[in-house]
């Protein structure tokens, strides 16, 4: 690999995605629908909820190919940089690749320019990436992310939902994506109040993912047998922090206890 150098008029500036394109490293867009011949691995339910101190982001761990559970431990929630995170649903391969490119895009900008992008700028960058992905989405490789972060300029958590065309919509309470999104967002909608603490928000999010997994076969629930739990992270003024599995296990045990009591054990 040689040092990339460009004529002034062709210089990609701090845009890493443009640099990747210029170096010919972008993936090829399929020219016909891929679903017809291949079964694509899909990732499913992710949610993000705002609370006064920031945002909680979470995603289940299941990936499916048609009827098959293809992975039980896939991760769909990623740190984008120190103060933001991204969660994805859709075709797993392109989605994870998009996250990788997005993470690098933010880091590359920060290094080249010597200052990080604003949260709004990051949200717009992701929007452009989703839009550039539209031709592949048309062939059955749709990727729909959620972006959330702590806006250090405003001292508040913010979250953004996207559609497949790159449309970017800021949400003020919660956002969700993927096949279980309807069930998850109903639970959140019922339980959400503007004054929830971080702890209460995390429990609400876990309950939402639990209910989504109960209704949607493509969403994985907590797997106590194997010790697999959703990826849950808080994004606050101190940055992106992922919760550990012991914490999640304890929370899920109490949620399951609660569910059992509520349903009274009858069939």
């Amino acid at each position, binding site marked *: *690999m*040689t*040092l*990339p*150098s460009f004529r002034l008029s062709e210089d990609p500036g701090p845009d*890493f995605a443009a*640099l*990747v394109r210029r*170096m010919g*490293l972008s993936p090829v867009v399929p020219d016909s629908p891929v679903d017809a011949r291949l079964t694509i691995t899909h990732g499913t339910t992710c949610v993000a909820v705002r609370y006064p101190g920031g945002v909680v982001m979470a995603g289940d761990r299941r990936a499916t190919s048609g009827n098959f559970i293809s992975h039980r431990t896939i991760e769909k929630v990623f740190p984008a940089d120190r103060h933001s995170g991204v969660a994805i649903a859709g075709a797993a391969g392109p989605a994870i690749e998009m996250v*990788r*490119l997005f993470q*690098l895009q933010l*880091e*590359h900008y920060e*290094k*080249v320019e*010597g200052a990080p992008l604003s949260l709004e700028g990051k949200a717009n960058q992701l929007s452009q990436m989703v839009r550039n992905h539209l031709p592949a989405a048309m062939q059955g490789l749709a990727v729909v992310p959620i972006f959330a972060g702590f806006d250090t300029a405003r001292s508040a958590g913010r979250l953004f939902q996207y559609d497949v065309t790159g449309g970017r919509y800021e949400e003020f309470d919660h956002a969700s994506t993927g096949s279980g999104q309807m069930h998850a967002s109903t639970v959140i909608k019922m339980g959400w109040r503007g004054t929830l603490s971080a702890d209460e928000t995390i429990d609400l999010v876990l309950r939402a993912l639990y209910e989504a997994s109960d209704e949607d076969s493509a969403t994985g629930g907590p797997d106590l047998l194997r010790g697999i739990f959703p990826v849950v992270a808080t994004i606050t003024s101190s940055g992106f922090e992922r919760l550990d599995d012991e914490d999640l296990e304890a929370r899920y045990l109490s949620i399951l206890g609660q569910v059992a009591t509520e349903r009274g054990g009858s069939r």
Partner: protein
Amino acid sequence: MTAPFYVAPEQMMQDRADYARKGIARGRAMVACTYDQGILLCAENPSRMLRKISEIYDRIAFAGVGKYNEFDQLRIAGVRHADLKGFSFSREDVDARSLANQYAQMLGQVFTHEMKPMEVEILVAEIGHDPAGDQLFHILYDGTLVDENGWCVLGGEAEAIGSRMKEQWVEGGTFAEALQAAVGALAGPDRTLVVSEIEVAVLDREGPRRAFRRVEDEDVTSVLGSNDTNIDT
């Protein structure tokens, strides 16, 4: 048609080297050295915005002296090289040695083939997982690549600063000792440096994935004791 004057290749190289050296000597110097927990990079720089020291990758830093626009161009090329390499392969596959080689190639090429050589001296530093893995690559305007041990000086008056550094730097010292040695060496016996005119950054051995961190003025002041650097020189 007039025949061009014959210039001996030795003379031509000598002229170019003199030209580059003069350009570099006009700017201020910088020092890099290892300490127990990392690598310290310390430059004399009156500007807060136009940086001489910056981050290339997780464990790699860059420093340049001489003509700002020229070393900044090299810095950006380095960031691009590292990010592309990490993107195509893996983050662990990005290393200072290959980057330093690329820089040496480029500077050598410019020195012999272009109208004017680049008036820069650059440093590529990589922090190892243990002190034995620390690397300092010093690259000169003509593409000469030097693998430095422990510390190195870039810029004008390198010899004088280097001899002071040799006296004051101790292997495996603390951050404070390294910073005092570096600032003392840059300042010399007859001069005091103001904290606002020193740019300091470190590569931290233990710490987050991105090891590069700028050291704030307050922290520099707390190490150097007072607002100037008239320390044991």
